[in-house]
C-alpha cells in the first residue's frame, strides 16, 4: 500500500496497462505535453512518447469515432473527452456506433475502448462544465459506465476498464482528483460490476457513488452520533449495476436512501428505486428516498451552487425522516 491521490491512482492504472500492451494508446485534447486539463495525464507523454499519447484537434466526434474504428481494427484506445458535458458532440459515436456494433454484427466485433471524462460541480464552472450525465450513458445497452470514488478504486477500475473488451466510459469527478488515500502498489484490478461496501451499518442503506460517497460517509458519521447505523454502498460501476449488494444490504437495514449528484428526474436513482421495488419490495420497511440535485442546470454563483449540490446535511435529513 502507498499513499496516492485519486489522479495519481488513475494514472498509475493507465501506466501499468500501457507498459504491458503496446496496443494501448491514449488520444484526446491536451493530453500530451500539457498533461490534461486537470493534470490527469502528466508525465505520460514523456514516458510513452507522442506515438502513444496523442494530442488531437478539438474534434470530439472523431476522437470517439476513431476509437471505435481503431478498436474494431484491433487496438485498445483510451480517449479523453475533457468534460462529460461535451459528450453531446460525440453522442452518435457512443450511442449508435460503439454501443451497437457488436450486437448488430451478431457478436463479430469487439470494441475494447475506454472513454475517460470528468464530471461534477462545485468549482464554479457553471452549466456547461459541471454536469453529472451518467444516466445518459447507463440508458444505452452496450456501454459500461464506471465512476470511482477513491484513489484505489480509480486505479483498479482503470485497469479493469482497459482490459475489458467493451466500450467503457470512465468518469472522473473533478472534485476528487486531489483526494488522497491508500492504494495497492503494482498491478491492481477492481472488477467491473462489483459494488464496494464503504462503511458497514445496520439501520439504513445509503447507495452513493463518485463524490457523493464522501458526503454519504460524512452523513453516516454524523448519524452514528445520533445512534443511527448507516451502511454506505458504492456501486463503483453503474452499468452493469451490482443489484445483489444493494438487496443484501437491505435484508439487514430495510431502508434505502439513494444519493447522486445528477439531477433527480431520469437519474439513475429512479432506476435503482424501481429495481428494489421490483425485486426487494418485501425487504423495505419505509419508502425509498432520493437525495439528488434539483431539476435545473448547475448555477454559476457559488452561493447557489452550494445549495444545488446534495450534501451531508441533506442526506442526514433524508435519513432522519425515515425514523
Amino acid at each position, binding site marked *: 500500500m502507498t499513499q496516492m491521490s485519486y489522479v495519481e491512482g488513475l494514472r498509475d492504472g493507465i501506466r501499468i496497462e500501457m507498459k504491458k500492451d503496446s496496443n494501448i494508446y491514449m488520444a484526446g485534447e491536451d493530453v500530451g505535453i*500539457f498533461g490534461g486539463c486537470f493534470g490527469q495525464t502528466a508525465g505520460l507523454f514523456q514516458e510513452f512518447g507522442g506515438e502513444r499519447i496523442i494530442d488531437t484537434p478539438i*474534434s470530439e466526434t472523431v476522437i470517439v469515432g476513431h476509437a471505435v474504428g481503431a478498436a474494431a481494427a484491433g487496438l485498445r484506445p483510451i480517449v479523453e473527452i475533457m468534460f462529460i458535458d461535451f459528450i453531446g458532440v460525440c453522442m452518435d459515436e457512443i450511442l449508435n456506433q460503439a454501443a451497437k456494433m457488436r450486437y448488430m454484427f451478431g457478436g463479430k466485433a469487439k470494441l475494447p475502448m475506454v472513454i475517460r471524462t470528468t464530471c461534477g460541480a462545485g468549482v*464554479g464552472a457553471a452549466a456547461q*462544465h459541471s454536469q453529472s450525465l451518467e444516466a445518459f450513458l447507463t440508458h444505452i445497452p452496450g456501454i459500461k459506465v464506471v465512476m470511482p470514488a477513491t484513489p484505489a478504486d480509480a486505479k483498479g477500475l482503470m485497469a479493469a476498464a482497459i482490459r475489458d473488451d467493451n466500450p467503457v466510459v470512465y468518469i472522473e469527478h473533478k472534485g476528487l482528483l486531489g483526494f488522497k488515500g491508500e492504494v495497492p502498489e503494482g498491478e491492481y484490478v477492481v472488477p467491473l460490476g462489483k459494488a464496494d461496501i464503504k462503511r458497514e451499518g445496520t439501520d439504513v442503506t445509503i447507495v452513493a457513488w463518485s463524490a457523493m460517497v464522501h458526503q454519504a460517509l460524512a452523513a453516516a458519521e454524523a448519524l452514528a452520533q445520533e445512534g443511527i447505523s448507516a451502511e454506505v454502498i458504492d456501486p463503483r460501476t453503474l452499468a452493469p449495476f451490482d443489484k445483489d449488494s444493494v438487496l443484501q444490504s437491505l435484508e439487514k437495514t430495510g431502508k434505502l436512501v439513494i444519493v447522486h449528484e445528477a439531477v433527480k428526474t431520469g437519474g439513475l436513482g429512479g432506476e435503482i428505486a424501481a429495481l428494489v421495488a421490483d425485486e426487494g419490495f418485501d425487504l423495505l420497511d419505509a419508502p425509498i428516498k432520493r437525495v439528488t440535485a434539483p431539476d435545473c442546470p448547475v448555477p454559476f454563483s457559488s*452561493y*447557489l451552487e452550494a445549495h*444545488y449540490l446534495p450534501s451531508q446535511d441533506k442526506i442526514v435529513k433524508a435519513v432522519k425522516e425515515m425514523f
Partner: protein
Amino acid sequence: MEITKEKLLSFYETMLTIRYFEEKAVELFAAGQIPGFVHLYIGEEAVATGACANLTDKDYITSTHRGHGHLIAKGGKLDLMMAELFGKASGYCKGKGGSMHIADVNLGILGANGIVGAGQPIATGAAFACKYKKTDAVSVCFFGDGASNRGTFHESLNMASIFKLPAVYICENNMYGISNNQKNHMNINDISDRAAAYGMPGMTIDGNDVIAVYEAVKEAVKRARKGDGPSLIECKTWRHRGHFEGDPGVYKDPKEQETWVKKDPIIKLEEKLLEHKVVTKEEIAHLQEEAHGKIEAAVEFAKNSKDPSLDELLTDVYAG
C-alpha cells in the same frame, strides 16, 4: 477608406476598456473573488473592436469562452458584466451564468459559450432569422482556430453558403487551442483557405491591427447585408496570457510570445494615433483615466450587489 477621428478614438476607447476590464478580472481572480474559469482576451482586443464597430444593436454576435472582448465591443454593460463575474444577482445572467455565459439578447449578444464551436450553428441560425424576417441585420460569429476543427464549422459554413445567409464568420486565430499549436492541429496555415470548400470568400488579415479588421469586416458585412451571402475572415492574433487564468502557458515559445507582445494591438494603435497627430499624449492619458474609472465603478457595483436568492435556483429553467 478614410476613418473619422471619432471612430479612431472609439476604437482606442473600446480596446482600453476591454484591456482594463480583464486586467481587473486577473486581479480579482487571483484574490479569490471570482470563481470558476476565466479566459482572457488580452492581446486580441483589435478583433472584436474592429469587427463590432460595423454592427448595430440589431445585428447578432455569438461569442466564445473568451468572450469579454466581444461583449464589451458589442455594447455590453460593464457593471452588469462585472457583477456576473462575481455571480451576483444584479449580473447579466442573475449570477447563473458567469464569465463563460454572459449574454444580452437585446443587444444581439447571443452569449459567450462554454462549448467550443457551439456558436457557429447558433450564429448561422441568427443569420437565418435575419434573412427570413427580411431585416437587413447580419450575424457575426467569433470562434477560435481550435473551434474551426469542430464538425459544427463545416456544417455551419456549408449551410450558410447554400442558404446565402447574412453571416460573417470571424476566426480569431491565436495559433493555439489550449496547448495545441496550430501546426499540430491542422495541416494548413491559413484557415481562410477553407472558405473555398464552401464556395464563399475567405481572407486573412492582421488581427492586431484594428483598422485592418474594421475595413475587412466592413466589406463582409456590406456583402451580407446586400444578400451576397457569408464570408470567412481569419484574423491572426495572439493571446498574451495562458489559456485560462492559472495556465502558465509553458507550451509557448518565449521568443514568439515576446514578438507578439511587441505587436500589442493597443500600443500599435496608440503609436499610430500619436504619429499622425490624431490625439495628443494628454488626450491619451485622459482616455486611460476614464477607462480605469469605468472599470472601478463596475467593480464597486458588483461588490455592492447581493447574491442571488435561493428561489432563483429553479427559475428560468422553462419560459412561461
